[in-house]
């Protein structure tokens, strides 16, 4: 069921039941009041009759009848009957009417002294009147024409009011519920229209000052994240296939040459060496592509206590093994009197990748392939800075160099895939650390890695 319908129905039901309860109570109170009032009138009539008939000697039955017949204030269908001790009719205000009464009622009056009862639509009051040890019963009955017509009138008014009230409530609740939920319906239309091809579309946030606005804002944020990761994926695939194609094409042409032409052993060897280089490049590329994807995991699964300086030396040794022309100088900024300050909790292999990548970059872009690594610490952080005196990074690229596949314009002449720094950033952030860069064009760059140590 639509929420709009639900709200409308619930609201209508609540208001309708309130209205009904209210009308019922009013009607009931009025009915009670009318009845009491009328019984009171009948009682005084009965008492008056009793007094006139019995106490006032000047008035006898005939005179009383005349008085009764000519009273202006007579009630509609008024009857007054007086019975003596033996339940014999002693006086009747109307001769020409058939008078119904039953003995049971008379006995009840004698027992209870005062009885209120009905005779069809007529109210009946019976009282026990004691005069000179003689107990007479006076029954007075009449039809409350005005009271009952007032009641009918009230009932009709209430019913009509109720009906109108309910109809108006239903209409209004449909209107307001629809009004309140119409932005949601708009959302549904807008959201349905968003596909992989137009992730840049955004919902109308309507000032963002109510729940709907917040919902829209939250949804827009989600869209932004979706769009970003989608873009990332797209550019990843594009770049990856592009990067893979170049060495593959080179490989193919080299193989074709060696197949087509009559070459001597030395030339074949040269070609095979080229092929080997290209394969190395492919391996390096697929490794870095893997690195990009791997640390996407949201937490480190195999964290151990790792000495950061040890990682630095390992990374240094690994790099120098493959690239003996690199020169990496490692220094401690201060003596670690407590080795826990340079120990972090993390994935050893991933953290080593960070330092390998950063040192490799530093040496790659430095003029003499030289890098300076300084190990430092504070009470809660282990700091490693990697400096080079290379080409530097333009200031406007400081934030972008950590994006996957982004490469500064001045770095394009040096081979690389633009993945290393983004991998570093992800790994460092995975370890709740920070990676920062300062650089000056033509003077060199410094990358600073901050990792919380195990005392943090």
């Amino acid at each position, binding site marked *: 069921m639509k929420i709009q319908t639900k709200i409308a129905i619930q609201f209508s039901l609540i208001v309708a039941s309130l209205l009904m309860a209210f009308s019922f109570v009013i009607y009931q109170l009025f009915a009670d009041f009318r009845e009491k009032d009328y019984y009171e009138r009948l009682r005084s009539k009965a008492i008056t009759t009793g007094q006139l008939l019995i106490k006032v000697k000047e008035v006898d039955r005939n005179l009383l009848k005349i008085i009764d017949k000519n009273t202006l204030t007579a009630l509609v269908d008024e009857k007054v009957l007086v019975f003596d001790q033996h339940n014999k009719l002693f006086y009747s205000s109307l001769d020409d009417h058939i008078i119904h009464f039953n003995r049971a009622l008379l006995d009840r009056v004698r027992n209870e002294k005062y009885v209120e009862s009905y005779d069809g639509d007529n109210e009946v009051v019976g009282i026990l009147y004691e005069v000179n040890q003689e107990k007479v019963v006076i029954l007075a009955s009449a039809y409350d024409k005005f009271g009952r017509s007032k009641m009918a009138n009230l009932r009709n008014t209430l019913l009509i009011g109720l009906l109108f009230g309910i109809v108006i409530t239903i209409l209004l609740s449909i209107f307001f519920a629809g009004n309140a939920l119409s932005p949601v319906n708009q959302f549904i239309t807008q959201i349905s229209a968003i596909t992989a091809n137009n992730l840049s579309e955004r919902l109308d946030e309507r000032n963002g000052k109510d729940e709907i606005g917040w919902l829209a804002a939250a949804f827009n944020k989600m869209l932004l994240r979706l769009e970003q990761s989608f873009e990332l994926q797209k550019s990843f695939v594009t770049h990856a296939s592009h990067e893979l194609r170049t060495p593959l094409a080179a490989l193919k042409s080299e193989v074709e040459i060696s197949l087509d032409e009559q070459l001597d052993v030395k030339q074949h060897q040269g070609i095979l060496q080229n092929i080997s280089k290209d394969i190395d490049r492919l391996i390096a590329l697929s490794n870095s592509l893997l690195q990009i994807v791997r640390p996407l995991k949201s937490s480190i699964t195999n964290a151990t206590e790792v000495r950061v300086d*040890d990682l630095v*030396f390992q990374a240094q*040794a690994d790099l120098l093994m493959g690239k003996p022309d690199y020169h990496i*100088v490692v*220094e*401690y900024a201060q003596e670690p009197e407590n080795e826990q300050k340079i120990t972090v909790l993390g994935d050893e292999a991933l953290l080593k990748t960070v330092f390998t990548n950063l040192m490799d970059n530093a040496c790659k872009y430095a003029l003499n392939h030289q890098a300076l690594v300084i190990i430092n610490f504070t009470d809660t952080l282990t700091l490693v800075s990697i400096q080079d005196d290379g080409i530097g990074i333009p200031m406007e690229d400081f934030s972008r160099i950590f994006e996957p596949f982004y490469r500064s314009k001045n770095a394009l002449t040096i081979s690389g895939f633009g993945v290393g720094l983004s991998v570093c950033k992800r790994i460092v952030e995975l370890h709740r650390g920070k990676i920062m860069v300062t650089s000056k064009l033509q003077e060199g760059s410094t990358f600073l890695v901050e990792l919380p140590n195990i005392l943090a």
Partner: protein
Amino acid sequence: MLRIADLEIFVDSKLVKRAGIEIKLTAREYEFLVYLVKNKGKVLSKNDIAANVWDVHFDTGTNVIEVYVNILRRKIDRDFEPKLIHTRPSLGYLMRENP
């Protein structure tokens, strides 16, 4: 197994004990200690150490070796007697039981 005084190095398991207490070392600290113990009694220059423990051309102008010597001292010498690692100023380091 290598031994000097009550310092024992179990080469197979790369386990180091001083006075029977196991001492945790990083891979490079272990290499360094093994190099020192294997050459006990000899004064080893920073160049020797760099070439043999770091086995790459190493800039001995940095403080790395001093730092490692101090770390090793804290781990195997500070709480024990006799002291095993000794400094020969401007010459280098040596390891032996008596100073």
